[in-house]
């Protein structure tokens, strides 16, 4: 039996023994490698490795031994991953050991973010022109270039488009894109591992640094200080820095004054939310990139409903295209409307029996207490039956619980009410209309 087959057997058994959550969280991410001396398990990180080692490794070794015809199997666990095909490459090739740390790697540019794939509109005209200038003449045109605007308006796209243009003109240039959150996290890690000098060298030797969402530096003094020195070193060497933030530099309360004034020493440009026509153009362009023609009326329908940011527009578009593909439906306003519901609707708390009783009582102009009462008069009994049927349809309460909520009635009464209303709704238009009206009121 090959070792992976042995591991698969072990997996099968562990899946039986552990809860689904435990199994999926701690066992599934492990990869097994067959070695002459035994089995080496690879965990995605140190945390998972330590957790497995402490809680499950003994049992794993026991099971592997049992499946290897009772012979003892040596089991090792360490951090690492087996590179497979096009999967993201592990930091260290093949297998890494816990003793070897993953090297500090700077963020790469995303080749999808180019000026060609960017949609120009009034809201981003100036920022786009500035970014293009910087891409053509890094270090000379505007340094630093500070782009600010709300979430999801395309700041990252423009910044990376400038970076990609620089790279196109100078393929050997070392250009890094890094999110501020990542800068902070990497710096903390570098401090923990006594690698701060390496961290500094890495950043200060760049030809261009693109740093996104600088507002993440607010209140983080040590990161600000480190960034200040990096920033100065790059600027002095006439190397390009592009910064983005969700607000104007002077509004970055909690960021040191000297840093704020340096941010404003180049060019500061804003990006506003895209106007309707730009949103439509973005949707149509993105659809084209996916190989689909989006009908203009659908693009307008979506663009009118999603105003605030481009990421949401993209999410909506992906969903609409997928819905068309998986359901075989044409891309029209109806399909778009259904798809957008999932993206935009607010799921209120679950409908409760109390809420149903209140709504039904209001609808039929009776009191809630009538629904609880013993009264069998038709004006009360029919609404009560409707309310019971709605409770069964819209809540997960058991029938005895529903009966209790209607003045302590038996579950068979609830069952009778449900059948009665279903029967009436199929014969009587008025009952059907009432029921559907109430259903709509309660669920929208």
């Amino acid at each position, binding site marked *: 039996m090959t070792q992976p087959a042995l591991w698969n057997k072990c997996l099968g058994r562990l899946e039986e023994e552990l809860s689904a959550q435990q199994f999926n969280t701690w066992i599934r991410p492990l990869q097994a490698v067959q070695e002459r001396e035994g089995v080496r398990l690879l965990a995605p990180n140190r945390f998972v490795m330590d957790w497995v080692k402490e809680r499950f490794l003994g049992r794993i070794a026991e099971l592997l031994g049992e499946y290897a015809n009772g012979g003892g199997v040596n089991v090792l666990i360490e951090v690492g991953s087996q590179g497979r095909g096009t999967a993201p490459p592990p930091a260290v090739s093949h297998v890494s050991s816990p003793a070897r740390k993953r090297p500090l790697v700077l963020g790469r540019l995303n080749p999808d973010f180019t000026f060609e794939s960017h949609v120009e509109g009034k809201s981003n005209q100036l920022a786009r022109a500035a970014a293009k200038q910087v891409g053509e003449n890094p270090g000379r045109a505007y340094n630093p270039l500070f782009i600010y605007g709300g979430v999801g308006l395309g700041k990252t796209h423009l910044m990376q488009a400038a970076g990609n243009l620089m790279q196109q003109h100078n393929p050997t240039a070392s250009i890094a894109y890094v999110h501020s959150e990542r800068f902070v996290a990497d710096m903390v890690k570098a401090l923990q591992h006594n690698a701060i000098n390496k961290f500094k060298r890495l950043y200060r030797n760049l030809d261009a640094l693109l740093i996104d969402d600088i507002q993440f530096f607010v209140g983080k003094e040590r990161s600000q200080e480190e960034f200040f020195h990096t920033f100065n070193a790059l600027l002095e060497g006439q190397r390009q820095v592009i910064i983005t933030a969700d607000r104007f530099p002077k509004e970055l309360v909690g960021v040191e004054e000297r840093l704020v004034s340096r941010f404003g020493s180049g060019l500061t440009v804003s990006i506003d939310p895209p106007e309707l026509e730009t949103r439509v153009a973005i949707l149509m362009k993105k659809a084209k990139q996916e190989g689909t023609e989006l009908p203009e009326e659908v693009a307008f329908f979506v663009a009118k409903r999603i105003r605030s940011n481009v990421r949401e527009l993209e999410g909506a578009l992906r969903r609409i295209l997928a819905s068309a593909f*998986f359901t075989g439906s044409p891309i029209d306003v109806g399909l778009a409307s259904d798809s957008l519901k999932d993206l935009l609707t*607010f799921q209120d708390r679950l409908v409760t029996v109390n809420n149903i009783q209140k709504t039904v009582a209001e609808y039929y102009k009776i009191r809630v207490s009538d629904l609880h009462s013993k009264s069998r008069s038709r004006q009360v009994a029919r609404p009560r039956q409707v309310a019971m049927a709605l409770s069964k349809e819209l809540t*997960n309460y058991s029938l005895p619980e529903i009966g209790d909520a209607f003045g302590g009635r038996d579950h068979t009464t609830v069952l009778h009410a449900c059948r009665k209303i279903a029967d009436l709704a199929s014969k009587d238009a008025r009952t059907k209309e009432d029921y559907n009206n109430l259903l709509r009121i309660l669920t929208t």
Partner: protein
Amino acid sequence: MNAQLALNLQLKDSSSFDNFLPARNREVMDHLRAAVEAAGGNAGGERMFFLWGEPGTGKSHLLQAACRQAQEHGVAPVYIPLANSTEFSTAILEDVEHVPLVCLDDVDRIAGDVVWEPAVFNLCERQREARGTVIAAGAANPKHLGLRMPELATRLGWGPVYQLHALNDAEKLAAIRLRARNRGLEITEEVSRYILDRYPRDLRSLFDLLERIDRASLASQRRITIPFIRGLG
């Protein structure tokens, strides 16, 4: 002693796409399968996928099914139940961008958390850069999760967002019988209806009940009838 024996002999209900009753959630299931298939590859495919819905609509089931499918295709996925985030630290997210598929369950549970939100945001960024796939699930859509970081909300909604719809009673009946069959249990339609009419009807409670029935029936060696279920209390 008998109960102990019964426990060891039980079949577990491991989550897979095959034992998920899709009903109105057919499209999301098919799309999710395709996304998992593409995870780690160079071909198109979704990089971000978001599921939301009421408790018991099958979010965790689908995430775990996605992990199973990925593993069957040779990808070791990462599954992080954020409802348990207090039990472990954000270190669980470190280096996972080297994994092609990361599933984040119960994202709503970290809403407002000043440590977890940036850490998940950071993970989304790293995963995007590494061209990996993130499948996340929560109680509401990304806009309404109550996150303090709008940057995180927009990233979670960058790909397709699907609401999972609860099953109606007829579908629940089918789900109970499917789950029972997978466990090797014989449950008649009459018994299934009795269960639906007498017990809380959310799927989680129904499946928990099924497990109790299975255990009791195995321990007592009795057929599953209405009087038997009534006897469980």
